[in-house]
């Protein structure tokens, strides 16, 4: 652990035992480490948000959890199983879904084809899941034969989230899902994310819009320079004067 203030590991009376548990992640792309003993954890059906200033390693921490960054130290477990050495593809098979920040849809393919590709690893019939996605994002049903590249930014994000949901993941990871969309669309997306979490799927997301994201979060991680600075429930972080002062603009 770094020199972060003593914190309770589990927010407000929730049952412990996180579904995803990343402990002491250390690593980077080149010689220099970006993450220094970073910890992240999410319980079943919980929304966890990673916030922090630019260059804090938020997206890097997310990539490390997904196996896109070689770790020099630390361990990642999913449902109690050590997945530290698995490739991203193998993690998809284990129940992780990842929505990258950019280039997260097949632009030349229709919305429906995007969802079909999301379900590529599944051998069974995926029409039920597709129906659930259309139920969650009704606008996608209307546009299902339209190329994803022709949709608006907010609709594209819906396609991206829908694509990741097609594998029926247990853990959905979102890298700045609201980047570049209007505040109204952002609220709408957050509502949908809450809905997804209610179905029992754990959510781990990185967000620039820290205040709004923490408001819906069960748990928040404030990262600074690749280290955990604060970890608490979303509400507690929003109420914490130090966090407000330094990271939420007063």
């Amino acid at each position, binding site marked *: 652990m770094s020199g972060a203030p003593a914190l309770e590991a589990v927010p407000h009376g929730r049952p412990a035992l996180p579904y995803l548990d990343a402990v002491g992640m250390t690593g980077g792309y080149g010689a220099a480490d970006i993450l220094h003993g970073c910890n992240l954890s999410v319980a079943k059906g919980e929304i966890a948000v990673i916030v922090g200033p630019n260059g804090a390693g938020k997206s890097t921490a997310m990539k490390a959890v997904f196996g896109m960054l070689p770790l020099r130290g630390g361990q990642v477990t999913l449902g109690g199983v050590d997945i530290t050495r698995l490739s991203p593809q193998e993690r998809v098979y284990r129940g992780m879904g990842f929505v*990258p920040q950019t280039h*997260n849809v097949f632009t*030349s393919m229709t919305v429906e*084809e995007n969802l079909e*590709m999301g379900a590529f690893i599944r051998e069974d019939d995926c029409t039920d899941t597709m129906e659930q996605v259309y139920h969650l994002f009704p606008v996608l049903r209307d546009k299902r034969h339209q190329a994803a590249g022709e949709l608006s930014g907010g609709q594209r994000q819906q396609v991206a989230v829908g694509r990741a949901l097609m594998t029926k993941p247990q853990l959905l990871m979102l890298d700045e899902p609201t980047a570049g969309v209007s505040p109204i669309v952002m609220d709408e997306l957050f509502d949908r994310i809450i809905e997804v979490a209610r179905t029992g799927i754990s959510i781990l997301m990185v967000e620039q819009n820290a205040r709004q994201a923490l408001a819906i979060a069960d748990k928040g991680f404030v990262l600074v320079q690749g280290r955990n600075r604060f970890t608490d429930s979303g509400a507690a972080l929003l109420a914490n004067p130090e966090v407000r002062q330094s990271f939420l603009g007063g």
Partner: protein
Amino acid sequence: MDPLNALVVLANFVIVPAVAYGSQLALGALGVTLLFAVLRFANMAHGDTMAFGTMVTIFATWGLQAAGVSIAPLPTALLALPVGIAVTAALLYATDHMVYRFYRRHKVPSVILLIVSTGVMFVMNGLVRFLIGPGDQRFADGARFLITAREFETMTGLDEGLAIRSTQALTVVVAVVVVAWLFWFLNHTRTGKSMRAFSDNEDLALLSGINPERVVAVTWILVGALATIAGVLYGLDKSFMPFTYFQLLLPIFAAAIVGGLGSPVGAIAGGFVVAFSEVGVTYAFRKVADYLLPGNLEPPGLMQILATDYKFAVSFVILVIVLLFRPTGLFGGRAT
């Protein structure tokens, strides 16, 4: 003024040959564009891949002919085609394993792959010349004509005849069937869609669990099939000579780039644009003009823009114009 005869002359010397040639180029360009879409490099060895596939088909044709097998009036080569496709696909797959895969793993820029494919081109070229020789081979048998000029004249009572060779008709029919199948495959099968997904966004395809090696293998097989079919149709229509096939690379690349590299529809359109330009620019329009203009306005010359010796200049000019003014091609492929 005799527009009907003018039209027949035009059809006989420009439209029919250009449609057949355009179909052959379109099939060739489809192979180039498909490979570019998935593996992201322009395959310099495509002309010689066509030569290799045609050579294997010719060997198989000779074998069938020696065994007395015939599907007259259709050419025997049509029966030998699956053998050519299978051997060519196997060769391409082996080449990928031995050569391209190494560079793919090292994530080299596509210009390196282009140079590598040039090396593969020389090897294939040598292989074909070694096995069948550099000379001209004619392997078309079966009926020569669907309709001869004489038959057309007696049928219609016109002064001019319109001849349609059976190989020309065969080319168009086979091209239509192949293209229809290819589009169905790409748009309606799981494997075809995964190829498009991989071509669209490689990283996201990996995240979706699409196996890149499988996509690459299927692509090489399709490229082998398209190249062999294009080569055999061209060889039936004209004749087979390894050097001619190497030269076909230019019009095929022009076709693929005119349509937009990576766009299958573009490759087909590009094939016809190049074929009609090449045939149109090198055809002497004197006879057509004779029929259309009043007697006293008879043109003094042949009305031929370019001698047929320079037909490759046409592809080259098209290529330059497209790259200057619309580098992504008519159907918006990737910039080259």
